[in-house]
């Protein structure tokens, strides 16, 4: 599946396209199929996201998993600072990216 990611223009936070808006959580992402360019052009022009692009991902039992480790780290946060990830209560959350 193809999903869209970028950064919030004001905060710089990593965001994911839900089909309606941009979410902080990769599990909210939707498959955009062949519509990536259209959505990206519209959303970036409206300044709802910046630096956005399409990536490959797959859906598994844990949810949506970006294909590349770099995107998994973007989705979670820095593996070396569990307290600053999106799952601060889970000390093993970093294992998901590997």
């Amino acid at each position, binding site marked *: 599946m193809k999903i869209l990611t970028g950064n919030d223009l004001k*905060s710089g936070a990593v965001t994911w396209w839900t089909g309606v808006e941009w979410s902080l959580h990769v599990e909210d992402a939707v498959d955009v199929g062949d519509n990536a360019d259209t959505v990206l052009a519209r959303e970036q022009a409206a*300044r709802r996201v910046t*630096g956005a692009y399409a990536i490959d991902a797959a859906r598994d039992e844990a949810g949506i998993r970006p294909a590349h*480790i770099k995107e998994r*780290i973007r989705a979670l946060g820095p593996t070396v600072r569990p307290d600053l990830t999106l799952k601060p209560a889970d000390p093993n959350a970093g294992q998901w990216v590997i």
Partner: protein
Amino acid sequence: MGDLMYKYDQYDQAMVDARVAEFRDQVRRRLDGHLAEEAFRPLRLMNGLYLQLHAYMLRVAIPYGTLSSAQMRMLGHIADKYDRGYGHFTTRQNIQYNWIKLEEAPDILADLASVEMHAIQTSGNCIRNTTSDQYAGAAADELVDPRPYAELIRQWSTFHPEFSYLPRKFKMAVIASDTDRAAMRLHDIGIQIVRNAAGDLGAAFYVGGGMGRTPMIAPCINSFVPLDQFITYAEACLRVYNRHGRRDNKYKARIKILVHELGKDEYTRQVEAEFAHLLSQNIEPPLAELERIKAQFVDPPFETGLSDELDRSDPDFALWVDNNTVAHKAPGYAVAVISLKPVGAIPGDASADQIRVMADLAERYSFDELRVTHAQNIVLPHVRKADLYALWQVLDANGLATANLDQIGDIIACPGLDYCTLANARSIPVAQQISQRMAAKEQEIGELKLKISGCINACGHHHAGHIGILGVDRKGVENYQLLLGGSEGADCSLGQITGPGFDENGIVDAVERVTDRYLGERQPGERFLDTYRRIGMAPFKEAIYG
């Protein structure tokens, strides 16, 4: 503000204040839609604001690594108010914040300007922040304080219209001792202040060094340029590069490629011709300006008659003194190095509280001065030996007293894939694992500089590590190459790859096998690097790969 370092004049302050106002307007226009990202991106980068893996990242310039206590406190304030309570000191003596909001960036720059700081020259294809010896003005072995020359370069290079759009970024370092503590020969231009046979001071120019994907050690192209001509000579070096440097291929755009492809002799010939021309143009800053700058880097009022004796009855303190203090030029004083490498911690990171503690200690014990090292540590340059124990106690209470300077736990590591968009692999977890694994053997091993980069750009200086590690992406999986035999010092050398790479656990095992082989092979007095140079790669390859 300290009295013993450069203070802005009205021109410096006006330039920085104007830049803050300009950037505030640019951010406003970006947020309200009058500037598209393509137009805005180079403008934010000129102010050190990157879009990194998780958020905007702001890189703040610390010219030649020198800070006052007030400036250090401001860095802690920014970490608390605008970031997530910490900062990351970098291998170019700067600091980075990883969680910056675009709408707050102008306020941060305004706060920095209030203490004579900025984020100019920390990105883009310009002359970047000039680095220097972290012990400048304090080292027992230096000829003169190199920082006035670095400050003159800062003033000359800031907003230099001819060199604002070079083929690639351009890094300069200035030292003034034969012990190179600034990786001088691994810069685009390295300058060593030297004295000739007649007793005059001059600048030796080393041009075309660098790390990255094509590491090269800079050759000396002129061993003595008079100090009243050295900016003109630098201008000639840059002008030849700007004329011929490749703009068609970013991987071949650094000056090291030009010097290599033209050859040192032809590049030097062109520089000398340009230099002769520029001398007739009288572009050198007035000597009075250099003298004005030098007058602001005078020695602190050192006390005389101090004892060099120390009470070493506390073994932990004695170990820290042995490992983390350096000879000072003034009797009764020492240079104290604060390690930002506790066992298992993130190299170069400091919390806002730790930053404030270090600022307070500098005010109390080091004439209000601190330095950032390219090895991602902090220096208090002028501490009375009689104050070392009190200093150490405060450091120890704040997690800042790790006694591992230049040892295997004192690892240089780039932010790697945990923070950086360019990285191919994580650096920090590897550094943490090695630090933990090797902690018990650290003192036995002695000096061993280990440096880790998460990609070929080599921000972690892996080419120059006695042991270097390079993270690569192998079909989406992190893989780590091992290098041995590099050095960034006066005995500069580039590390050689041992062979096939390793996964995250494998690289830690490999480092341990290398150090075990060293311990088995070393002769009395040998550092790891000495043993490697004596016996070569083969015994280590055998230890690693069998």
